[in-house]
């Protein structure tokens, strides 16, 4: 059953655009795919390596703007979409290295704040350098991908399949990576950095690898985001986006791929589909019942209240998330299991 289930899910997902003909739904599913990719990236940093990075959306922005600079009328450069996926990933990874190299030796919570500061700086710089970046309006008319003469345009269906394909490739990659030498050293660092270092793991290299690889995933997500929307602006990459990715990770289960996918899917659907839909329903209901209070309601404003509640309740009552990995659960509950003797010992 455990081996069959993923195939069943993939096949079922492949049929979704044939069954659901509503373009806005497919678009929401595709955006959810983007969130899954971002969560994969953050999972390498937070879930595997145990480093809290709070300004993750900055790497997303770097990926998106890299593509926007090199494939739009902004500078008159029009490079092909497909190789640009890798180029943007590399650029984001490079920024990950540049930020990580001096900061990764900091203690965990300091690192969180440094990345948060970086996450504030990047959108601000993109907004201020308006000569190149188009300022708050951003860059429009970004090239959209073509495959064998077929232009993707604004049709969400090909993007949906593209996200699915990239997610599948990433899953294969991450699954192998997790059990590789570097993957095991990430988890050793997460569990006890000092012990890991004493076992001969070069913690700096391993952390840098996690940082740049995580950033690379955000870079890929950025290219796809920019191409699908055909426009980018700094406001899409603020702290809120970072929080959304973190909430997806925390809800699903840090460090476990099925959990990450589940969390990102729930948050993504909530964000892109359910809340806008529910707002519509409530407003229509309000208009029919002539209730101004219902007709004027916008449930979308409350999504960050929801994410906040998710972050707090999950961390307090089920820190391993909905679908945890066995090791992570054991780590997070070590206190309770060994609680009594440890207390006596201390």
């Amino acid at each position, binding site marked *: 059953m455990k081996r069959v289930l993923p195939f069943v899910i993939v096949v079922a997902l492949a049929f979704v655009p044939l069954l659901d003909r509503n373009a806005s739904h497919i678009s929401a599913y595709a955006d959810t795919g983007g969130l899954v990719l971002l969560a994969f990236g953050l999972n390498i940093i*937070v879930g595997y390596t*145990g480093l*809290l990075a*709070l300004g993750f959306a900055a790497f997303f922005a770097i990926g998106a703007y890299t593509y926007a600079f090199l494939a739009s009328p902004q500078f008159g450069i029009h490079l092909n979409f497909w190789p640009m996926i890798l180029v943007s990933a590399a650029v984001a990874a490079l920024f990950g290295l540049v930020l990580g190299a*001096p*900061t990764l030796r*900091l*203690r*965990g*919570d*300091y690192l*969180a*704040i*440094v990345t*948060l*500061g*970086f996450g*504030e*700086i990047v959108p*601000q*710089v993109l*907004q*201020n350098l308006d000569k190149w970046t188009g300022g708050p309006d951003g860059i429009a008319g970004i090239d959209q991908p073509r495959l064998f003469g077929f232009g993707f345009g604004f049709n969400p269906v090909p993007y949906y399949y593209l996200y699915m394909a990239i997610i599948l490739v990433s899953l294969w990659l991450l699954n192998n990576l997790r059990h590789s030498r570097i993957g095991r050293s990430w988890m050793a660092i997460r569990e006890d950095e*000092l012990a890991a270092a004493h076992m001969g793991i070069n913690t700096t290299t391993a952390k840098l690898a996690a940082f740049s690889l995580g950033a690379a995933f955000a870079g890929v997500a950025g290219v796809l985001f920019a191409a699908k929307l055909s426009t980018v602006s700094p406001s899409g990459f603020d*702290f809120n986006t970072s*929080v959304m990715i*973190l909430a997806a990770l*925390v809800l699903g289960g840090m460090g476990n791929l099925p959990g990450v996918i589940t969390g990102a899917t729930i948050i993504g659907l909530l964000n892109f589909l359910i809340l806008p839909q529910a707002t519509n329903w409530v407003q229509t209901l309000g208009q029919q019942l002539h209730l101004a209070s219902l007709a004027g309601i916008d449930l979308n*404003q*409350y999504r*960050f*209240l929801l*994410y*906040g*509640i*998710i*972050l*707090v309740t999950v*961390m*307090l009552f089920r*820190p391993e998330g909905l679908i945890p990995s066995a090791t992570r659960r054991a*780590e*997070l509950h070590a*206190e309770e299991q060994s609680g009594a003797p440890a207390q006596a010992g*201390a």
Partner: protein
Amino acid sequence: MAEIHQFFQQLINGIALGGMYALIALGYTMVYGIVELINFAHGDVYTLGSYFSLSILALIPLSRYTGGWQLWLIAACVIILAAFLCGIVGVLIERLAYRRLRNAPRLAPLITAIGVSLILENLMQIWKGTSEVPFPQFLPRGLGQPDNVFVIAGVGIHERALIVVVVSILAMLVLNLLVFHTKLGTAMRATAQDRDAAQLMGIDINATIAWTFFIGAALAGVAGFISGIYYGTTFFLNGYQAGLKAFTAAVLGGIGNITGAMLGGFLIGIVEAMTSQYISDQWTSVVVFSILILILVFRPSGLLGEQVPEKV
């Protein structure tokens, strides 16, 4: 001459701004010193301070009081009440969101702290809406000076800047007394140094930590009130950026160090005012956060802090 006056003008603005940052930074630094947690929700408690002040002021028929001293008295009462309410919120946050996770991996309380921050922001959004809220400018104007501006040696000082500086320095003096000359302050410093040893000496750790949160949040509440007076408006998201800048101040001064937080607050305020004068308004946050990153990279112990080795 005008150049120099401009410089001093900005210096005073920076000091006023810095007073607010310093008050917020104190809360970060005290909480960090005692439980090693970056209380991410602290910036929002600051906004909450101005929201509480607004609601309290709305209950008072201000137009009935015309005498200057009555209004000053009202202001003092509002500050104390708002600070008290913020303190309660701070204690509640610690009790509900952080205490359970005191011995969990560092990541866990930091994540709940972000969650609490989001919850507070959204509750404030529901409370007073998504746009900027005007803050009543009820204090007697000018103290007899024209245009509310005192001119000292050719440099004009706004009354509101003066109020901010005076109130923040008063609050810091009270804090200093509390931390260095009372039993509670001794307990706080002992707990920060070594929680287990302090417990063995008969200090009630939970109560001491709760008091630390109360005092930190109350100072943020004071900052919230004076920010309302200074800017004339308040906004539910103000606390996010202000909190981050105040945290920068705490780190600049050396986190865990109370004098350092005050120094850092004033320095960051001055840097921000000078940046907006000599570079551009839109670059202030970039400059401040770059300072944050640079300090953390090159001198993580800050200006006055001591190098703390990672505890094993």
